[in-house]
């Protein structure tokens, strides 16, 4: 009796594990098969080299570059915002702040990550963009800059929280060694703690990067949905995710080539986040070896 009960529980548990694995396999399968049939009609070379993305127009072009440039432009802006601010917060919390202060502020920061992204999107469109328009004359209502900045704000807690964990995981003796040599807090933080925790900090930035690449609502709302090959942050751009939303919500016929473009775009996105996750996994593994 007892044994059958154990068996049932074991079966249930492994079944739940199996669901997630099957889901992942299913997603990859759908992405791969649909994009495979897409690439039977559009050559991979055109897809990677054509500089225009106009699958919904009469003059059709299927070059992913404008979507990639849009994605990377917005992501770079986001990381450029989140990295310095997130790192400063992490260093302040780990090396300067009192424990009580840290214990109250850190959860509050993490609330930033809990704000629905659609709220961030409207924040970008209705607050940040008008503000930027005061500084940069001629800035359009939709632009990469505003979406990037707000996306950066969204990923600050990822950078600060994970980096702070990495900084605080350092043995206490390391900072004591530095203080004992007559170093100031600033020198200790920047010459000892940050280099020693660098792998953890790099991981936090890569994960924030991956999060930003996959982010959808903010860019769909504030960046403008215009696939232009540009590196000018004042331009309107379209990211891969925003394009997928645009097509999914539109009236594109199921099974048509236009419909399949979202899978081709999706698999491109998947490849990038997959690579980033693997890099961060690899860095983390090396980091663990180093300190054990």
């Amino acid at each position, binding site marked *: 009796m007892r044994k059958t009960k154990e068996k049932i529980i074991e079966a249930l548990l492994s079944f739940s594990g199996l669901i997630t694995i099957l889901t992942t396999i299913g997603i990859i399968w759908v992405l791969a098969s649909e994009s495979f049939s897409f690439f039977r009609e559009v050559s991979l070379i055109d897809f990677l080299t054509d500089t225009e993305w106009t699958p919904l127009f009469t003059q059709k072009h299927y070059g992913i570059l404008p979507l990639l440039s849009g994605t990377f432009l917005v992501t770079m802006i986001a990381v450029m915002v989140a990295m310095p601010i997130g790192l400063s917060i992490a260093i302040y919390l780990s090396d300067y702040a009192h424990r009580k202060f840290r214990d109250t502020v850190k959860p509050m920061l993490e609330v930033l990550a809990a704000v629905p992204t659609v709220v961030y999107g409207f924040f970008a469109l209705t607050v940040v963009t008008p503000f930027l328009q005061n500084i940069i004359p001629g800035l359009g209502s939709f632009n990469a800059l505003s979406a990037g900045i707000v996306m950066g704000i969204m990923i600050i807690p990822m950078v600060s929280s994970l980096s702070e964990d990495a900084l605080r995981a350092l043995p206490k003796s*390391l900072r*004591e*060694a*530095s203080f004992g*040599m*007559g170093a100031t807090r600033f020198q200790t933080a920047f010459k000892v703690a940050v280099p020693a925790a660098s792998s953890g900090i790099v991981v936090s930035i890569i994960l924030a990067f991956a999060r930003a690449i996959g982010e959808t609502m903010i860019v769909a709302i504030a960046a403008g949905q215009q696939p232009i090959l540009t590196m000018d942050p004042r331009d309107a751009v379209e990211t891969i995710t925003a394009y997928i939303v645009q097509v999914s919500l539109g009236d594109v016929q199921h099974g048509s080539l236009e419909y399949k473009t979202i899978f081709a775009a999706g698999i491109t996105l998947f490849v990038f986040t997959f690579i980033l996750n693997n890099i961060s996994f690899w860095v983390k593994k090396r980091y663990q070896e180093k300190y054990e």
Partner: protein
Amino acid sequence: MKKLLANKVDAYYGDNHVLKDINLEIKENSVTAFIGPSGCGKSTFLRMFNRMNDYIDGFRKEGQIIIDGKEIYKKKVKVEELRQNVGMVFQKPNPFPKSIYENVVYGLKIQGIKDKKVLAEVVEKSLIQAALWEEVKDSLNKSALSLSGGQQQRLCIARTLAVEPSVILMDEPASALDPISTSKIEELIDSLKENYTIVIVTHNMQQAARISDKTAFFYMGELIEYDNTKDLFTHPKNERTENYITGRFG
């Protein structure tokens, strides 16, 4: 000559009274050992001489610590300068995860010394003093973490010597090491005595007897007995000292 002086020192962690009215004088170029059971306050007391307790929440002290005639807890004293003069070696070897070379020059670099020639000279001199030079002279760019525990500890001593302190505080510097490394550290301490004033906390009474000129016995936050090491170990005046050194408690 009188180098270090503690005058009516009391210390607290929050409500915990960890040091009670300590008065003690330490002569220049001598080795002084602090012994006593765990929690007797000897490490806390050691760390008051370079103010390493400053960062501990709830730490508070009364009385004076005087080094070279100067009260070190005065407001105008720069704690960074104090620690360049009063170096410290810790219980567990704690080299920075950098190269051997970078470890030794750290103290100089944070003082803004950049001259490569000066740094190279200091590296060689400090490593020779710490009896590590012969073992590492061909691998100065290797990570300090690749060294053995005993070598790491000698590197930490070299790092401390590089900034030319006059006092070196050692907090159980050999407790994490094997017997051979321990005897190397002990020889080293003996040779450093010529130029430095050394204060060492140790759990190992044989070690205290072997290397120190004077020994202070702490118990429950009080300084029970302070005397020439030879006298303290052969003719302890206090019963608790006798009980401790004969192994009846602790």
